[in-house]
């Protein structure tokens, strides 16, 4: 059965994402150009992949990314909409590119050279059962051995990011099930 290799949450209590970035000793200037969701997803992925020894720039063609949230890119959509008013019309390309939620998958893939599948889904609320299904779909691609998966939401006050790395087959450790996911992210 699939098992959980590593996991990490980034919550509102973690405070400022830039401060968190600095505290982790990461040197990746592109981080500062990212939107809030990508920053949170990036930092969670750094932790999860770091624990698994995969935080590096070696090409990884057997790793996929599957992320889910509820509001897609609404936070960025609201910001972009402000730039296209009748009186003040100054749409910005650097803002517009983040009005697609799957861009967070791209940011993580670029940083860690993840070359498998990247998929983004939108669901009403965090649902461990859906995550199990979405990862099963990713493993339907037989050349994929690991999936970085989770929930990336960036509304103020919400727990922003819950991420884990799942291995296709394995013994020992924690099985990747609805129950274990809920147990881990309740802590």
């Amino acid at each position, binding site marked *: 059965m699939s098992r959980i290799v590593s996991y990490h949450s980034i919550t509102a209590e973690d405070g400022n994402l830039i401060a968190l970035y600095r505290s982790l000793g990461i040197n990746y200037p592109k981080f500062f150009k990212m939107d809030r969701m990508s920053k949170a997803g990036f930092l969670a992925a750094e932790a999860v992949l770091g624990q698994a020894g995969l935080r590096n720039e070696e090409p990884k063609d057997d790793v996929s990314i599957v992320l889910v949230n509820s509001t897609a890119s609404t936070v960025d959509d609201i910001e972009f909409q402000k730039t296209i008013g009748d009186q003040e019309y100054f749409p910005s390309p650097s803002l517009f590119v983040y009005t697609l939620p799957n861009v967070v998958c791209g940011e993580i893939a670029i940083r860690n050279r993840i070359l*498998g599948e990247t998929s983004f889904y939108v669901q009403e609320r965090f649902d461990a059962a859906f995550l199990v299904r979405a990862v099963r779909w990713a493993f339907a691609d037989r050349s994929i051995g690991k999936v970085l998966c989770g929930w990336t939401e960036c509304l103020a006050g919400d727990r922003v990011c819950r991420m884990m790395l799942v291995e296709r087959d394995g013994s020992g450790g924690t099985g990747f099930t609805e129950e274990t996911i809920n147990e881990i992210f309740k802590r």
Partner: protein
Amino acid sequence: MVAIAGHNIYTGLGFGSRAVYDRVRAGSSGLALREGTFGVPEPFVASLFDRSAIRERFGDRDGAGTMTPLEMAMVLSAEDAVRMAGIDASSEDTIFVISTTKGNVELLENAPDGGDPRLALWHSARTVASRFGNPNEPVCVSNACTSGICAQIVAKRAIEEEGYTHAVVIGADMLSRFVVSGFQCLKALSGKRCRPFDRERDGLNLSEGVATLVLTSTGTGIGVELEDGCIRNDANHISAPSRTAAGQTAAIRAVMDEGRAAGLAFINLHGTATLYNDSMESVALHQCGLDGVPAVSYKSIFGHTLGAAGVIETVISCLALKERVVFPTPGYRECGVPYPLSLSEDFRPAAGDRFLKIMSGFGGINAATLYRRTGDE
């Protein structure tokens, strides 16, 4: 086997796959210069819906008071495809998979704080699925411009891995001040009808559209199966395709082998007519040894319908495969990509039982799907 059992296309050109197919077969395109539409300062070329015509067609069905034109068009499209497939869309054995990039984003104009619940993509998906009395939570795929074929891949996996009997895949996107402004500020739009793969190409045309595919594990449907599919990231840039085309090449290689390549009738390209996309696709096909296969982009017919594009183009390609023709790529005259592809402004006969479809999008994503003719209806 996952077969295509029903389909519908709904665009500004008309309602119903056959109606739209016959119109484009006869040379029609809904692409026209739009000035002042959505109040954007620069003119743009697009194929658009008549929203009042959608409301009229929707009539007094349940939800007429609260649903948006996008959601109404999705319901109408899915109703038609479900009827054609003869499936029970209210069954727990049927799953809905929705592909949209921006959903009802135009509602931000009146709800700038994001407070309108219909802004949520899952909300639109649920609104549509519940119109059919379907008890399952619909799946909402948001993979940028590849969403329409990613949704088909997900639907196939849900059938094969989870035992669903049918999947209703709906692709849908509308244009708005938001979407047009965004693509304009990226300098991605052509001021004229776009010209995929041509030397003179200078950008894409955005358009509106909705389409549905019903996939089934029972029977052979219309005689075309979704044989394989693959999604790959090129981990290169969030808003530009990789110059090495590594992701698209990997996705194509995953669904092709020698036998399949020998049976290819044509390749349905993404072909947005941006400089970088079309070049990347030519590199990918060259690397896969497929640059000599007849190829087509429908973007100079339909424009780029974003989340609907993968579904609309799949339906057109299925009908073309059955009719044994390769569609023309209007505006393609002189090769403007690193490796010449076999494109034409004319209809060509198609030999072979398969077609390959490829797409790529923001976030570094690439996808490929392969379809096979299994017989006649």
